[in-house]
Structure formats: structure tokens, C-alpha cells
């Protein structure tokens, strides 16, 4: 479904990605693990068009989408729940979810999809008319994911959904990611500091180190891999 071929990205004089290649098959959850600064976020940002690729290619459903502007990439069915959540703090929860559905013109289904978001994250329903800036970190994360889902994506890019969130909420969020993948057949590309958690719910994984992919395998195999265990899973 999604394929990166030899993708190179640099900021100023620094090269963040040294030609990485990876594949995300339809219906799977794929995770990118790696230390801080390994290039995980940059990879997602290059896919959604927020940063410019210097070389290589991004193809989605067989079409080249390299360096297209973000709003055109969203229109193809890729939703990105970005690092730091980036919810619109000045807008209400309801408006944030409306923003998620910005490109959709089917008003009738909006209410239905809103209800679906409330069934996975009931907390958002209670907060509907609050401005998003007043939500807790965990609630903002739910909103960021809900907002991304409102675009009815084929592929969901998730950047660090557990960052700065209480463990209990993290568990809820991860359970919902699994449910969404299973029930909606939504493909997910996940990046996560908590490699244990990420590999547990993923089908396949890639290990990034300083802008290069050094290892890839089925998630279960990566979890069993002694090198991965030592470097990323706490021994």
C-alpha cells in the first residue's frame, strides 16, 4: 500500500534520513522503532509532505506522491496524527473533529462517524464544547487520533501516541488502535518510543538508527531478537 524507496531527507546541512526503504502492506500495523533522533518523526513527516524529500520516492497505492503538498496527500487517504498532537487549542473539541473531516462533503455520515469516535473515546463526547487547549494530554491525544480518523483515511500515521500520557490511558489508546485496525481494516504506520508496547500490537517492524534502517522483521521475531531486546526492550 505504502512504499518508501531510498528516501533521503535533510534539514539545512544535516541529513536526517539516509535513503530508507520500507513497505507497509494493506491492513497491517507496522511500527518504526528507534532512539530519539533516529529519524522516525522525519519519516512520517516526509510521507505526509511536511518535509521535502531530497531523494528517493514515496508511493501510495502505486502512485508517486513524493513532495506533494500535505493537503493533496490527505486527500488521497493518508491521515497523520503528528508529534506533539498539534490539536487546535483555540478550537472546540467538536470543531477539531470537524477540521478532521475538512475535505469530506458527505454531511450525513459526519454524525455517524462522530458517534464512532465517541464509542472508542467516550471522554471526547463529555468535552465536546470545550476548547481543546483545556484538555489533558491524554484527552488531546485521543482528540488527535479521533481527528485523524474523521478524514476516513486508508492509512493512519501515528507519531508517539503514548508520549506524556498516563499508562492507563496509553493502554486504552493502544487497545483502540488494535480495534480500529481489526474492525475498520485500517492500515497503521506507528512510531513509538515504547518499543515493547508497539511491537506487541504490530505485525511488522523496522528498526531505525541515525537515519538508516538497520533491521526489519515480523514484530514477533523482532521481539525475540537479542539485539533488539538489548537495545530497545530493556534487556
Amino acid at each position: 500500500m505504502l512504499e518508501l524507496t531510498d528516501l533521503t531527507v535533510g534539514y539545512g546541512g544535516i541529513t536526517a534520513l539516509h535513503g530508507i526503504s520500507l513497505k507497509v502492506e494493506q491492513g497491517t500495523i507496522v511500527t518504526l522503532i528507534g532512539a530519539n533522533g533516529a529519524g522516525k518523526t522525519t519519516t512520517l513527516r516526509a510521507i505526509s509532505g511536511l518535509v521535502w524529500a531530497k531523494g528517493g520516492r514515496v508511493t501510495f497505492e502505486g502512485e508517486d506522491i513524493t513532495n506533494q503538498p500535505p493537503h493533496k496527500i490527505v486527500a488521497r487517504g493518508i491521515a497523520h496524527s503528528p508529534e506533539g498532537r498539534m490539536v487546535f487549542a483555540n478550537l472546540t473539541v467538536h470543531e477539531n473533529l470537524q477540521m478532521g473531516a475538512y475535505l469530506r462533503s458527505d454531511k450525513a455520515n459526519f454524525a455517524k462517524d462522530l458517534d464512532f469516535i465517541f464509542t472508542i473515546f467516550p471522554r471526547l463526547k463529555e468535552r465536546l464544547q470545550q476548547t481543546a487547549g483545556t484538555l489533558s494530554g491524554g484527552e488531546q491525544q485521543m482528540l488527535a487520533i479521533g481527528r485523524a480518523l474523521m478524514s476516513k483515511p486508508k492509512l493512519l500515521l501515528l507519531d508517539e501516541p503514548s508520549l506524556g500520557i498516563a499508562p492507563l490511558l496509553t493502554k486504552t489508546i493502544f487497545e483502540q488502535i488494535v480495534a480500529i485496525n481489526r474492525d475498520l481494516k485500517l492500515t497503521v504506520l506507528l512510531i513509538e518510543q515504547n518499543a515493547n508496547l508497539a511491537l506487541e500490537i504490530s505485525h511488522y517492524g523496522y528498526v531505525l538508527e541515525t537515519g538508516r534502517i538497520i533491521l526489519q522483521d515480523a514484530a514477533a521475531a523482532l521481539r525475540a531478537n537479542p539485539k533488539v531486546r538489548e537495545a530497545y526492550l530493556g534487556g
Partner: protein
Amino acid sequence: MHWLQQLTNGLALGSIYALIALGYTMVYGVLRFINFAHSDVLMLGAFSAFYLAPKMEAIFGPQSAIGALVIIVLAAAICAAIGILIELLAYRPLRKRPKLTVLITAIGVSLFIEFTCQHGAVFGAATKPFPKLLPTRELHFAGIEMASNDLLVLVLTAVLLVAMWFIVQRTKMGMAIRAVSFNEQAASLMGVNVNRVISFTFGLGSALAAVAGIFYAMRAPGIEPLMGVQPGIRAFIAAVLGGIGNLPGAALGGLLLGVLETVAGGIPGVSNYRDGIAFAILILILIFRPAGLLGKAMIEKV
């Protein structure tokens, strides 16, 4: 001297400031810089009306209400196009550059428009009498005297302010403007075409400036290419007073400034310092409430 009289005069002037201030504050909201050329768009609005007036008089007859409305709408459309063009040619290529670069460019655009228009082949530097678009009458109500034009300006401005609130708070484009103001990248991830939102913002702000320019010209002795500078600076101060980036703040700041100026102008001994009032207010605001009356203190994003 009648205080209520001063208040109505002040509100009439202040509502013009408010219309201009909205343009400053909206552009600041989406692009985080002060579009100094905004005051020149106002002037171009007045000149558009100046050149349209005889043509509309030929079609609709002298001082017809429909003719005046057509003039205002056409001038607003012309200025909306000019505003969009300024952003496209001068500011968009600098989008990724430091804000200071854009700010200096804005000053350059402003000077370019002003001095090009002063050239004899364009408008010329001399003051031209602004045509009477509508018949004027003195209205008397509860001891207050008011020119019918001032009342009209007040009512039309109120209508425009409500329309602006509706656009920004209740339409999809308005929501996109607010989203872009908060975080341009996140808005683009929702599928918002950020360039289109910025163009729309410039167009809307410039259209309001054109209307304000015509209203201002109706009260002024005449129009000339530098006529936008004084109301422009005051509207900028009004926007800062209300809290830059904040729409109700800009309207409130404009009205307040208009009233303060007019009231000060009516006090013997103080009236000479009338022009200094706006700047004194700016200094006080910068010292005591840098975020403005309705603005929230924000941490500078790095």
C-alpha cells in the same frame, strides 16, 4: 460641549478604524507579521471609488443609493484582488524566511504603492475632492447632531463586523482561518490548502480596507496617495490595543481609539495633543499590557 455628541462622533470615526484594524489583525493571525501596505490598500479603495463615481453617476444618476452601493462593492472587489496580488507577489516567496524580512518587504511595498501613486501619470500628489456619493443631511436626535453619512458608516460598519464574526466563527473557511492561525502545519494535515486560506484572508481584509477608505474619504476634505498613512497607523494601534490577532479586540480597539481621540479633541488645552493620543496609548499598552485588552499572553514559538 455635549458628551453624547462627542461619543457618537467618536464611534463613527472609531468604526472606520475598526474596519481597517480587522485587516491588520487577520493577516497577523495567519502570517504573524504586520502588513504595512494595508493602509495603502485603503487609499486605493478611496481612489477606486473616486474614478468609479462619475461612471456610476452616468448609469444610476447623481447620488443614487444603488450607485453608491455598486461603487463600494466594486471598490472592495478591486482592493481584494490587489491585496491577494500583493501577498502572491511580495510575501509568498518569502514564506519560509525570517519574519523581519517580510516586515521590511511590507514597508517596501507600502512605499512603492504610495510613491508610484503620487506620480503624475498615476493619481498625482495633489489632493482631489472626493465626490459626494450620497445626499447628506444633518440628523437631529435627542439633542445630538449627526451627519447622515456618519450614521450610515456606523450602521454599515456594525453590519460588516457581524458579517465578519459570522464568517470567522460559523463558516468552514472561517474555521480553516482559525486553524491556520493556530498551527499552519496541523491545518495542512487536515487537508487545508494553506495558500488559499491566506489569499482569502488578504482578500477579505483588503475588501474591508477599501470600504473603510471610502468611508474615511467621505469625512475627509479630499483624497491623496498618502491619505492611508494616518488612519492606517491608528488602526494598527487599535489592533495592538485590542490584542493583535484577536478579531473582537480589533473592533473594540478601533472604537475605543476613535472615541478617545474625538473626546480629547473636544477638551480645550488637550485638543492640540489629539494626534499624540494614539501613540501615548500604544506606549502605555506596550508597557502595561503587551498582549492587548483582549489578547492572551503567549509564549513566543521558536
